[in-house]
């Protein structure tokens, strides 16, 4: 097939490949400065209680130690995304085991670590609460007794441990359930999982004159880090400069501050650059894992398999701070309605504090949890009605022009194609090919996060093009995708583009590498910049070629007037000597997604922007005696709108699936009385290469109206479906329906034993 494109749609190697494969790339953990000291945190050892005293004398006397920093050394200031319930160091009380209470600054990381153990903190222990079901009880101990004093966005409705109560309502659910032939109610419980980036969170901070804070870190969002640090230290954003290092993976776990604030607090006190790197144990006990959810889901259907109503009650466990969990409590409702046409909805969601690790925005926040519930139940219902699960989905999915649960009109809907292709690829007709072997399918939709993007595109006199973006490259190669968009639009080769990124002082604002938006939004900003560059090129060429600007035509980076022409390089050289160079500021902000605000109450996320559609299917065997699951084949069909770089899209799909398999089968942070029982990678079981199955990716291109060349967000969706897809296949293989994640071998065996004992 002849592509009309020169650069997009082609699998070019990523622009940062050479540095990464040769070991020359400087990651956050590699970064060092002259005169740098090292910091280590002192963590709370109790889940809830008042701090009576912090004894630092012994630590201060230890070899190599410079300072011990506590809440007393920095402004009393709470911060947070929706509710300002976080503080850098616990000041008066602690809310979870692992909460930073102080930091030790020393000559070496080892000396700091040794001294951190010598800081004595005395607590008055208080009652703690570890599950959302306990936390919402009227007499539950309060995780934040002072919650009423916290500032919060006006949308949220708070009460005690509940940080938001949101609803999505449509039609009359009670009436519809009464009219239904069958009503199904199930509880689904999901696990708390870590984003699993390879590189721990790392930062170095330095203050110039005690006023200008400079931070180098592996943050995904330099501008948010800048704003939050300014808020914490009560300075203006422009007094903070954040430079992003090369990042060893983010997956949403590096959206919020990681260790930047500790480094900044320590550097302020000690007057020298201070570096912090999270240890593995800190990652497992005090990073920002995915919220575990309890979802009670009720669905009413006709016997012909038409969904009439859905009701849900959702508890989102945000841990000791609300963080992104308030958003999860909203977006999970959009996931729970699913990509289905449902005339009656009553979804109610609460985000709730518990005395456990604060949670964050792990890749597709709310996606896997909501999808596990809705897609597991779809199969349960299909089986009960005697309808093939694929057919049951096809009878209810959204199609072009339908209204989504929030009332937004859906465009470029490719879900049926995704489902049919996935079913075809996995061999759906033979769903149970042999005893103990079964196939599963699941589908979803997902958003392309909005937010504004700015780029400077600068063309050098040698024709080299600099793409200057405030967005960080977190490993997905999405900035290479944006560069491909730029190369396509500007009419240059990808090889002539160099990326400069992630410096709050020199790069334009970008909402950042989050929410599957990087190639989408930065790419669009590049297209805007190219429009402006073309205008400048026309003006310059017009002067040179004795024409009017509107008479100049630009083709593949060459300005033409009749038989005369000027290349981009020539124009850039002229611009350099005559007008300060050829440069443009391109910007993009996604148009608002119109929807019915009457349907949503207190939701902080209400729309799915430029939705993408996708289906996963798996073929697996279950050893009924050992509970071992062996995946033979895994198929992903994903609508990406336009595949800007197929190789890296496949990379996102394969990585997402393996990460999703981890959530489905093996990963879970396990707590006992608020203490993590598996705070290391020995017993927190991320899949290894040996556990990664054969994954086949099929790309569907149903262009969006907004994305560059029709692209939709790509990065998050692949992690959404594996838990549901695998749960459905296991149920199909051995009649064990597991409704709690992860689906361990032990749960499978236990369920099968119960089934055989009760004969159900």
């Amino acid at each position: 097939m002849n592509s009309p494109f020169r650069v997009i749609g082609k699998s070019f190697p990523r622009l940062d490949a050479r540095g990464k494969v040769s070991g020359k790339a400087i990651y956050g953990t590699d970064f060092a400065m002259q005169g740098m000291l090292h910091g280590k945190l002192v963590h709370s050892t109790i889940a809830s209680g008042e701090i009576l005293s912090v004894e630092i004398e012994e630590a201060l006397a230890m070899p190599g130690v410079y300072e011990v920093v506590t809440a007393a050394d920095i402004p009393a200031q709470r911060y947070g995304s929706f509710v300002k319930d976080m503080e850098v160091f616990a000041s008066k009380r602690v809310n979870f085991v692992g909460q930073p209470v102080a930091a030790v600054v020393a000559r070496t990381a080892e000396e700091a670590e040794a001294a951190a153990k010598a800081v004595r903190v005395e607590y008055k222990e208080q009652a703690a609460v570890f599950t959302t079901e306990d936390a919402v009880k009227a007499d539950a101990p309060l995780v934040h007794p002072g919650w009423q004093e916290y500032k919060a966005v006006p949308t949220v409705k708070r009460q005690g441990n509940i940080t938001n109560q949101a609803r999505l309502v449509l039609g009359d659910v009670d009436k519809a359930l009464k009219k239904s032939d069958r009503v199904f109610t199930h509880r689904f419980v999901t696990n708390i999982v870590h984003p699993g980036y390879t590189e721990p969170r790392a930062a170095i901070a330095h203050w110039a004159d005690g006023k200008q804070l400079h931070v180098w870190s592996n943050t995904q969002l330099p501008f948010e880090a800048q704003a939050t640090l300014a808020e914490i230290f009560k300075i203006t954003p422009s007094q903070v400069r954040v430079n992003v290092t090369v990042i060893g993976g983010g997956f949403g776990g590096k959206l919020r501050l990681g260790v930047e604030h500790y480094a900044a607090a320590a550097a302020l006190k000690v007057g020298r650059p201070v570096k912090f790197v999270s240890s593995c144990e800190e990652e497992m006990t005090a990073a920002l894992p995915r919220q575990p959810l309890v979802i009670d889901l009720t669905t009413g259907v006709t016997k012909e398999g038409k969904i009439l109503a859905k009701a849900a009650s959702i508890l989102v466990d945000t841990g000791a701070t609300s963080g992104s969990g308030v958003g999860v409590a909203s977006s999970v409702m959009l996931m729970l309605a699913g990509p289905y046409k449902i005339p009656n909805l009553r979804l109610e969601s609460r985000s709730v504090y518990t005395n456990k690790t604060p949670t964050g925005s792990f890749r597709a926040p709310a996606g896997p949890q909501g999808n596990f519930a809705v897609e597991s139940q779809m199969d349960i219902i299909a089986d009960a009605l005697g309808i093939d699960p694929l057919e049951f989905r096809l009878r209810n999915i959204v199609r072009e022009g339908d209204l989504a649960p929030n009332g937004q009109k859906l465009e470029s809907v490719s879900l049926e194609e995704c489902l049919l292709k996935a079913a075809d690829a996995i061999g759906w007709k033979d769903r149970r090919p042999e005893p103990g072997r079964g196939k599963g399918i699941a589908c979803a939709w997902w958003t392309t996060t909005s937010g504004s993007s700015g780029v400077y595109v600068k063309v050098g006199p040698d024709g080299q093009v600099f793409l200057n973006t405030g967005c960080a490259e977190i490993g997905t190669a999405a900035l290479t995708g944006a560069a491909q968009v730029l190369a396509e639009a500007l009419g240059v080769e990808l090889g002539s583009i160099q990326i400069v990124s992630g410096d709050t002082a020199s790069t334009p604002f970008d909402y950042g590498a989050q929410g599957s938006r990087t190639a989408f939004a930065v790419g669009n900003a590049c297209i805007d910049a190219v429009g402006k560059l073309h205008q400048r090129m026309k003006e310059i060429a017009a002067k040179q070629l004795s024409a009017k600007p509107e008479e100049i035509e630009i083709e593949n980076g060459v300005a033409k007037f009749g038989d005369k022409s000027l290349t981009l390089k020539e124009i850039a050289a002229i611009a350099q000597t005559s007008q300060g160079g050829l440069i443009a500021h391109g910007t993009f902000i996604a148009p608002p997604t119109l929807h019915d605000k009457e349907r949503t109450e207190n939701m902080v996320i209400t729309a799915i922007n430029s939705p993408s559609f996708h289906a996963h299917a798996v073929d697996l065997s279950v050893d009924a005696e050992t509970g071992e699951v062996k995946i033979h084949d895994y198929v992903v069909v994903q609508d990406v709108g336009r595949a800007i770089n197929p190789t890296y899209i496949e990379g996102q799909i394969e990585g997402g699936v393996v990460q999703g398999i981890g959530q489905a089968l093996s990963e879970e942070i396990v707590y006992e009385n608020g203490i993590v029982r598996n705070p290391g990678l020995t017993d927190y079981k991320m899949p290894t290469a040996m556990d990664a199955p054969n994954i086949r990716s099929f790309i569907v291109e149903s262009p969006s109206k907004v994305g560059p060349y029709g692209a939709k967000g790509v990065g998050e969706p692949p992690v959404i479906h594996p838990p549901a897809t695998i749960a459905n296949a296991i149920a199909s293989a051995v009649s064990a329906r597991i409704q709690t994640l992860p689906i361990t071998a032990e749960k499978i065996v236990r369920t099968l034993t119960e089934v055989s004992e009760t004969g159900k």
Partner: protein
Amino acid sequence: MKLEFLAPQTLQDAVTMAKARGGAARFIAGGTDLIIQARKSGAWPEAVINLQQIPGFGEIKGTGPNFSLGSLVTHRQIEREIRFAGALEALRESACVIGGHQVRNVATVGGNLCNASPAADMVPILLCLNAEVALAGSEGRRVVPLANFIEGPRKTVRASDEVMTEIAFAAPAQKFSSTFLKGGRRRAMEISIVAMAGVVSASPDGKMTDVRLAMGAAGPKAIRLTEAEKFLEGKVLSKDVLEETGMLAAAAASPIDDVRASASFRRHLAGVYARRVVELSWNRISELNDDRSAA
């Protein structure tokens, strides 16, 4: 933290260095257990005595029936040892599921035994092979049956100045085969929740004989399943025989509940794996002999 690093060139020096430091020094080979434990507990030894530069302990010797593993033989060596392909396959099966590639490249069999983890994957098959370990210390040399060497979790009869030098075993005399299976949540970098090794021989009249079964991770130390072994002597493989084997194995298990698995699931798996190990080993005997006749 200061850690003295010593690198003796001879066994004698290693023993002398250890003796001089009392219990304060630890021998180190691959370091894949020692360093992790020290990091985790913060209890670093005052000194580590590196055994890797002492010549002579890094080889697999023998052509059968007698074999010996130098204590510094890595899991990678065992995993790739062609002499163990076939009837002694369980040695390779045990070695190749320990840690990941990087761990197996440096982790040694001597270390695996001296570390005495209840879940150490080399122990069950070596118990089945009636392995004996040689120790050299300031009091001289001694040879101890592996079954007596490991006393409990992280506990052995080795004195702090004793170096394990060699692990010796003999293959069974009759036609035999072996199998190793383990249960865990993933296929690499996994600590067994139950490990099962078996060696089964065939008597000339086609019955099982000299059956040896050993189980790891289901009690304070890996053990031989003597009840099941006795039961299987002279039996012909059948569904009932396997069922009984499984029940005897499960009864012999004394597992714990932990974050990896519950005690009851471990007990259940002990039964399943015992059955499977016996059945697989028995089937492998004929497969091995078929291969030979075909060749």
